[in-house]
């Protein structure tokens, strides 16, 4: 009786040991395979075309990261929030850069005005309705009439009807003492190298593009912030979520 019990125990012990060993081998092999897969993804050029199964897996993982880290500001579908100044990631308009995966990855890693030296920190929109519009640049404030003229100039650039005098005054301010051209460009089409929005298209980062909403942006200034995720997300997560963000703009 006792011999049979002892035999059963030893058999079970041995079976458990073998099972544990097998499990360990499977886990290590799985981990190695996963690391190899992640390594392959990271060593590829960020904008390289991925194999279909590799792309599917990366986008699925990226979507999970996006939901956990990015959806709070950009929304679950990435369509942004103009009340908060969080850009729509699902259109084809890129505020910073050209929409290359590598650029998206850099933005996610180091952020925007995130106080990280490698982040995008080049420009703030001055508050022209304040005594000292910019802490960095020497700029004079604008009067409400001046701001109205600049809005008229921009409306005319978008093809809307505006008073010719106001447009002329607005152009002079835009190209002169307002210093608007310095960031938004002489043609007001913006500059993705510093994150200055295009002012003559139909995409609005803040508000709805109505004159009162544009007035607020010019009078109060804008300096939206995006934190950097380097150190909080692994390198492969950064790549996966960058690929996912890029895919949002590629949807038909």
């Amino acid at each position, binding site marked *: 009786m006792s011999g049979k019990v002892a035999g059963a125990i*030893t058999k079970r012990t*041995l079976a458990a040991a073998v099972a544990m060993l097998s499990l360990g081998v499977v886990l290590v092999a799985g981990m190695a395979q996963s690391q190899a897969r992640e390594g392959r993804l990271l060593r590829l050029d960020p904008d390289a075309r991925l194999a279909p199964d590799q792309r599917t897996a990366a986008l699925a993982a990226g979507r999970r990261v996006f939901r956990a880290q990015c959806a709070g500001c950009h929304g679950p579908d990435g369509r942004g929030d103009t009340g908060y100044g969080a850009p729509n990631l699902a259109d084809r308009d890129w505020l910073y850069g050209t929409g290359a995966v590598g650029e998206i990855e850099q933005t996610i890693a180091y952020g925007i005005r995130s106080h990280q030296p490698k982040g995008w920190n080049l420009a703030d929109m001055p508050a022209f309705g304040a005594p000292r519009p910019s802490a960095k640049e020497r700029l004079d404030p604008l009067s409400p009439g001046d701001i109205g003229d600049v809005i008229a100039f921009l409306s005319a650039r978008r093809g809307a009807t505006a008073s010719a005098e106001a447009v002329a005054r607005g152009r002079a301010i835009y190209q002169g003492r307002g210093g608007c051209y310095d960031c938004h460009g002489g043609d007001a089409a913006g500059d993705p190298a510093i994150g200055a929005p295009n002012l003559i298209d139909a995409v609005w980062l803040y508000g709805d593009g109505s004159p009162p909403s544009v007035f607020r942006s010019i009078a109060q200034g804008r300096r939206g912030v995006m934190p950097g995720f380097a150190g909080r997300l692994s390198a492969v997560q950064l790549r996966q979520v960058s690929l996912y963000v890029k895919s949002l703009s590629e949807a038909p």
Partner: protein
Amino acid sequence: MTATAPPAAGVAWLDIRTVHPRRALILMGAGAGLGLVLAGAALFTAKGTTTLVVPADAVAMVNQQPISRIDFDGQLRALAVDPAKATPAMRRQVLNDMIREELYVQRAKELDVGLVDPEVRSAMVKAVEAQAAADAITSKPDSAELRGFYDKHRDKYASEGVMVVRDLVFPPAAAAQARTALAAGAAPEVVATRFGGRDTGKTSGEEFYFAARIHLGEALFTAARALKTGEVSEAIADADGAHLLVMARNTPPAQYDFETARAQVATDYQAAAVARYQGAEDGFLRRRANVLVAKDLK
């Protein structure tokens, strides 16, 4: 004696009471193999361990310090080169520059250049401040936190008031009559001519409150702010005569509701968090430091 007898195939393999040389060898080999795999994985992946391979997220290791692939791509892009189209020579050049920079940074640490170079010291201070600030903005405040901040600083979230006001100055003896005429709706130019007054020219058209305050001075601005559209102020005595303010339009600051102010509230909330974190960092460094101050400066 049973131990020396050849074990029956199958059953004896599972009977741990029976010595089975082949089983012992296989299990030992499997255990050793697994251990080696685990140790190898740890060796090549754990942070801070010496490694002979370059991790996938790096393009090089310089004295165990990785040069990030993201930074490498960023450097290539800074040269206006699409990383995908960069030639091997460009890649080598960028990599060499980055390795050189890393070597010099490491050497600078060895030499402790921060002790002597004021620019490096200043950059180090800024870098630590920036690190504290970066930590502060990593967590996004939820809507309730933002609303709480908005409620606490409600006065801040209003439009800047706007006024169109004219400042006329009259001889003190004529001020009362001039005021009556202005209040009756007579044109300021006509009244000024008639009563020997003039427009000071301090204001020009529509102005934000802050600009009108600067142009008029505190006393006149305070009087102007209290006027409603179409009203004329009482005479305000000054060195150059009696001032009458004619308010053509006065739009006082209007409170923004939370939704309208949300972006600004978020920016201010994060700015406050940054200041708080940097203050805490400063306090922490002072608390843990052993600072001795000379007697004459205590």
